């Protein structure tokens, strides 16, 4: 079974610190990590390989430094890593990102399952997974919390999709793209052997030309959404601690105002 995992390198924190003197964003010194949701995708891919044999290939689009993310994936147990990197990809929105990844995956050739995380910790859109599936014209199932069964010969897969009030059991044909949620597994840590392998690992790099990308669909040029303004939301920073000598007094005050605003009766 050929499994492709799409992973994104993200800053290790979503905390955007503000320098109060200059009112600037402080982003320096933050280490880059694999998007936490993608760790579950890598783990699930390795488990599929352990059960059905085959190969796990991780693919990422990003600057040259994103090779580090692939190395960590190798250390966890992935077999190979592909870095899609080109200045021409800068400024990609989710339409362009998903196109680029789809073209990269096409170049890889045969695959049975593509796994992505539920969403990336920074961009937070959850749009890249379904986008890749559409560009490749393969079925897509979001929010997968369990792979129940794979029938290798019949080429079908049965999974559980998390909904707001429960889950659905769905069946679909291979090849398929699944986006996974954290409930699916517990990612393993890097093994010693994996770390050795990662040390010597050099990612195969695909440029825009290598994946035969149409210049109209990549980077800023291929991105219909335009970020016009970015700002830090203002938190009131107030601290409204309820005064009172006893617990009953404090609680009484709060309950009274809840009644007033008809939140409780």
């Amino acid at each position, binding site marked *: 079974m050929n499994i492709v995992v799409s992973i994104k390198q993200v800053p290790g924190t*979503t905390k955007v610190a503000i320098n109060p003197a200059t009112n600037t964003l402080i982003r320096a010194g933050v280490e880059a990590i694999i998007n936490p949701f993608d760790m579950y995708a890598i783990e699930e891919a390795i488990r599929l390989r352990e059960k059905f044999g085959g190969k796990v290939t991780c693919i990422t689009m990003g600057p040259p430094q994103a090779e580090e993310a692939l190395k960590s994936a190798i250390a966890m147990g992935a077999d190979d890593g592909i870095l899609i990197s080109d200045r021409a990809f800068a*400024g990609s929105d989710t339409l362009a990102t998903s196109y680029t990844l789809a073209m990269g995956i096409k170049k890889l050739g045969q695959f049975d399952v593509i796994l992505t995380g539920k969403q990336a910790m920074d961009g937070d859109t959850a749009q890249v997974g379904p986008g890749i599936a559409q560009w490749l014209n393969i079925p897509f199932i979001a929010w997968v919390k369990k792979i129940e069964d794979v029938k290798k010969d019949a080429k079908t897969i049965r999974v559980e999709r998390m909904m707001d009030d429960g889950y659905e059991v*769905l069946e679909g044909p291979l090849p398929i793209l699944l986006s996974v949620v954290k409930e699916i597994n517990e990612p393993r840590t890097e093994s010693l052997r994996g770390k050795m392998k990662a040390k010597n690992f050099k990612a195969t790099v695909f440029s825009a030309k290598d994946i035969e990308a149409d210049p109209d669909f990549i980077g800023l040029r291929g991105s219909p959404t335009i970020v016009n303004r970015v700002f830090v939301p203002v938190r009131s920073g107030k601290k409204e601690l309820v005064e009172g000598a006893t617990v009953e007094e404090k609680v009484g005050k709060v309950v009274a105002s809840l009644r007033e605003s008809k939140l409780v009766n």
Partner: protein
Amino acid sequence: MAIRVITEKCVGCKLCIPTCAQGAITYVDKKAVIDVIKCNYCGACIDACKKFKAILIEIDRKVSDQDLSLYKGVWVYAEQRNGEIASVVYELLNEGRKLAEQLGEELSAVLLGDGVTCQAEDLIQHGADNVYVVDNPKLKDFQDDSYAMAMAELCEEYKPNIVLTGATAIGRSFIPKVAVMLETGLTADCTQLGIDDYTKLLLQTRPAFGGNLMATITCTNFRPQMSTVRHKVFKKAAKDVSRKGKIFTKVFADDLLKSRTKLIEFVKEMESTVNLSEADIIVSGGRGLGEAKNFALVRELAELINGAVGASRAAVDAGWIPYSHQVGQTGKTVCPKLYIACGISGSIQHMAGMQSSETIIAINKDPNAPIFEIATYGIVGDLFEVIPAMISAIKNR
């Protein structure tokens, strides 16, 4: 693509620096300097430097071969499951109505499903001028393939200017595919919408970086302009039974509505009967509860005030309550009228999922807990005293 600062024009006012989400602008020798490796050409700094016009950007964006003027009207996707319209739809109708009026265009709803035509009047009474209905047994269960295809076909045919969809499990799953089919932009999980007075473009504002940053996004050159919109940020539309509108029934060939995936079964999995993301009141418990059995206290309070039960990740990871109850960046994003946080410290990740709640009560024994910074009412005290006191105060009236 190229970007640079024209040093002669730059007065060193630093206005551009905080607008750069990539951290690409630094201040060197009293002038702004842009690191082209970090820059993603978002153009935010250009906007900040309107006054001095010191930043020059050359972007060759693809121009659409669409005739943008043909695209008219605001559409709301009327999500339903088992014939029940999702409550976010009424919120979208309300907000969509405002946008449509500002543009002088019509508001329409799109209803996809099996045996759903009877819902169309209800959508009209909540503000829709038109309802496009595709009523077909093939659409009985939600499947990405069939729903995306039906939606894309309708958009191709009727050419809406704006398409709004709830940022629900369903909406966030299939609408990205529709956007790819239409080769247009999609802004995720918006919490604010508006129309630019001058350009008439849809201004879509959304949180990113776990709610620590807000971005305003436009889809300038392509149509439709599409967004998914977060639940419970807009008020629901009022019902007016006298409202009239038009219903368009579209018939598609069965072949077009084929789905490669199929539903085997649905398993309901909520501990309480209230759906967390729909709930008006949520009582959440964290590590401060100490052990699993103490969740009974949280449940008792929740039941008393008709609330749902939520939890921090620490409580979920400890195995005290299933993951479906987790609130936060890696759990559910909620926006109830009332959120009561019991024994929750208020980590960035937890607050990302609940900070837009209307009223927040925090119960924590540590007066320095960060949760108090966003609380409407902060009660410093032991939750094992505070919650029982609250229960009895609510009971004894």
